[in-house]
């Protein structure tokens, strides 16, 4: 499907709008909702790019599981408005200017033109492209090592979460100065330079 497909453009524009909304929303839950919408629209983009499996996975994993957990945590924190102040004065205008520069660069690059198929042919979508079978085939043959590395990353994250969350609770009524019982005591912050 061509990149200039009107459906693609409309959905892409909506996706950008929701992404911006996610950043600008004052309320954390509204932010999360924008993000859910963004994930949904991204799934539609995948669908338009003939990758239905990716679209479904996006919906199930990101919209269905991860954002639910995010909402879960946000709700436990209670309803509070985020403070949208500027720690650095004028940083928004700077960011906007940087965005303009980036956009101009992008337009310039687009004007130079990148061939659709880098190796000189025309881009053809293989018949089974993006199907579950094709994805599984690629994941478990050519990309099996990266796939396993991802599982490693998740394992480390899990161990880390357990280690950090598992705060050691020990009697803490002893007086200061006894190193033997001090393992869980809050440390003195190092003086800043």
């Amino acid at each position, binding site marked *: 499907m061509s990149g200039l497909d009107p459906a693609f453009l409309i959905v892409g524009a909506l996706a950008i709008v929701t992404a911006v909304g996610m950043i600008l929303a004052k309320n954390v*839950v509204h932010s999360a909702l924008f993000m859910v919408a963004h994930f949904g629209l991204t799934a539609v983009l995948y669908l338009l790019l003939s990758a239905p499996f990716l679209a*479904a*996975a996006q*919906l199930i994993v990101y919209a*269905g*599981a991860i954002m639910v957990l995010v909402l879960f945590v946000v709700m436990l924190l209670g309803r509070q408005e985020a403070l949208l102040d500027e720690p650095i004065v004028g940083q928004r205008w700077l960011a906007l200017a940087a965005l303009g520069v980036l956009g101009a660069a992008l337009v310039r690059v687009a004007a130079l033109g990148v061939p659709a198929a880098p190796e000189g042919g025309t881009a053809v979508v293989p018949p089974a492209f993006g199907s579950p079978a094709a994805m599984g085939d690629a994941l478990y043959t050519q990309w099996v090592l990266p796939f396993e590395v991802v599982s490693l990353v998740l394992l480390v994250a899990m161990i880390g979460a357990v280690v950090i969350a598992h705060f050691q609770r020990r009697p803490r009524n002893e007086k200061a100065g006894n190193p033997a019982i001090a393992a869980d005591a809050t440390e003195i912050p190092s003086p800043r330079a």
Partner: protein
Amino acid sequence: MDAIELGIVALKCLVIVAVLLTGFAYTTFLERKVIARMQQRLGPNRAGPFGLLQPAADGVKLIFKENITPVGVDRFVYFLAPIVSMVVAIMAFAVMPVADPITVTIGGQVREIRFQLADFNVALLYVLGITSLAVYGLVLAGWASNNKFALIGGLRSAAQMVSYELAMGVALVSVVLVVGSLSMNDIVDWQVAKGLPLIVLQPVAFGIYAITAIAETNRAPFDFPEAEQELVAGYHTEYTGMRFALFFMAEYINMITVSGLAATLFLGGHHLPFVERFTGNLPWFVDIGVFLAKVILALFLFIWIRATIPRLRYDRLMAFGWKVLLPISLANLALTAVVIAFLAR
């Protein structure tokens, strides 16, 4: 896609919505009647013959009730939540095949009409993806209501649905492994071709699916998000009138959807796999009847369970999901994979 085809799609959409809404109404009626009988009561019997017009009376009542918006709600999310619930519930039904396709001639052209809104090669994943969105309605309602009971209901539903979705997904993967396709039609056709419904081959997967389906639809004994003894009415405590009705509808339509999914995946869909060995393929209106019968059977099970089994304790529910259902479904998946790999040699 020409105008006629577009019209057919629109018509299908209308039919699905109309049938689901009617189905919802009469599922509530069925539930009240069945539970009443199980409790030695008569159930609704005033409106119409055998009380058959009771759902209509309820509908009229809900529509004309005043909508109350409590103080301090997050208005946008408060209005959004029931809509999300309803839309998601209806969307999930789009890939359900309810009969064999028929060919008709319209305007001189032969067209094939499928009794299914859409079929694509990841239809099953689509259903899982859409149903996984159903939790948003509950969570958002709970959060937006500015009510502690509603909030706890919403939180519970988030934890519960995410936990049980996992076991459900893994159980369904075993089915997909056996069939080798994620398309609904392929799964049904496979059962017809082999002449036996998948419940025979995958009884464990069916059991897990049945349990998780109850949890996913927040039905007793897993109805924690709205456990009335602890949480008033849970996530929809602050909803009245038609908005409340939308949640109510969503719950029952979800029941119909998961029942339809059970019928399609495990019971041979709109076919009678074993019987059709002898009778040959049945005509489309029989197909619809078969499908309906299976769905109603599953709904009856839902109601029967609700009338029989008391609610679990919340921590038991989570422990059951993570420590029992998930390991079993994983073991089942591994076993299925090994057997299939062995048979493939």
